[in-house]
């Protein structure tokens, strides 16, 4: 039994790199689902079981902040942990995201070791 991870980022390079880092971290995974923006992510969440969401902030159509707000406002998704992986450096915005209920935050560029640490922080130990 592994995790189903939803990765939300408009960059295919970042989605690919994150998937590689999950494998290196030996995260037990059933599936990695990819979405290009917040709206696509919401569609996935309506149709699929997801254990954790990793999302960017600046994306077309619906960004990460709106995605977090939409998830926290919907009882069906409110308990799914969301971690933000973004270039965002504004403390004000990151604190706002933390108040909105994100489970973790990592600034790009990030190393695979930092991604593993973020996953441990959100999901606990898996060994």
């Amino acid at each position: 039994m592994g995790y189903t991870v939803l990765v939300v980022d408009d960059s295919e390079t970042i989605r690919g790199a994150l998937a590689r880092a999950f494998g290196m971290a030996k995260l037990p995974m059933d599936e990695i689902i990819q979405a290009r923006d917040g709206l696509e992510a919401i569609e996935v969440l309506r149709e699929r079981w997801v254990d954790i969401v990793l999302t960017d902030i600046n994306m077309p159509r619906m960004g990460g902040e709106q995605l977090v707000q939409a998830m926290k406002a919907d009882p069906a998704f409110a308990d799914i942990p969301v971690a933000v992986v973004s270039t965002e450096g504004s403390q004000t915005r990151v604190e706002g995201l933390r108040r909105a209920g994100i489970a973790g935050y990592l600034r790009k560029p990030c190393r695979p070791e930092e991604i593993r640490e973020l996953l441990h922080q959100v999901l606990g130990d898996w060994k």
Partner: protein
Amino acid sequence: MNEEMRQALEIVSIRILEDAAFLFVEPADEGARPGPDWRAAGAELRWTGPREGTMRVWAEPSLLRVLSANMLGIEEDEPAAEAAGPDALREILNMVVGNCLTEAWGPGPVFHLEVPLEADPDLLVGDAEDGFWILAEERPMLFRCGGPP
């Protein structure tokens, strides 16, 4: 180019290219800059907030493939590296702008970064005049930061 952003660029661009794409980077002196027939692909990112601006980055297509291959951890001759090159350049720009804004103005202000887009090739000639040149893996790369368009 805005002086705060230029100084930030000098520090940030090299660090981002090293950290995100494992490239060896150094500032390019005038002799190392390419001539007017230089062919490059560009990406552009605009931001709004307490200060508004635009940054563009230009690099030759062969370097784009190196960027994406390194970021994805694959070989340069794999088709996925070729396909992801322009996306990798846009994402590098995204990281450079995000980190430059914090470097220049601190962690307080909230900026809104738009989605990075392909740059209009006609803008390359003007950008080459007053942009910031570096050498990444001994190949030229150009950043140009300006006010709102």
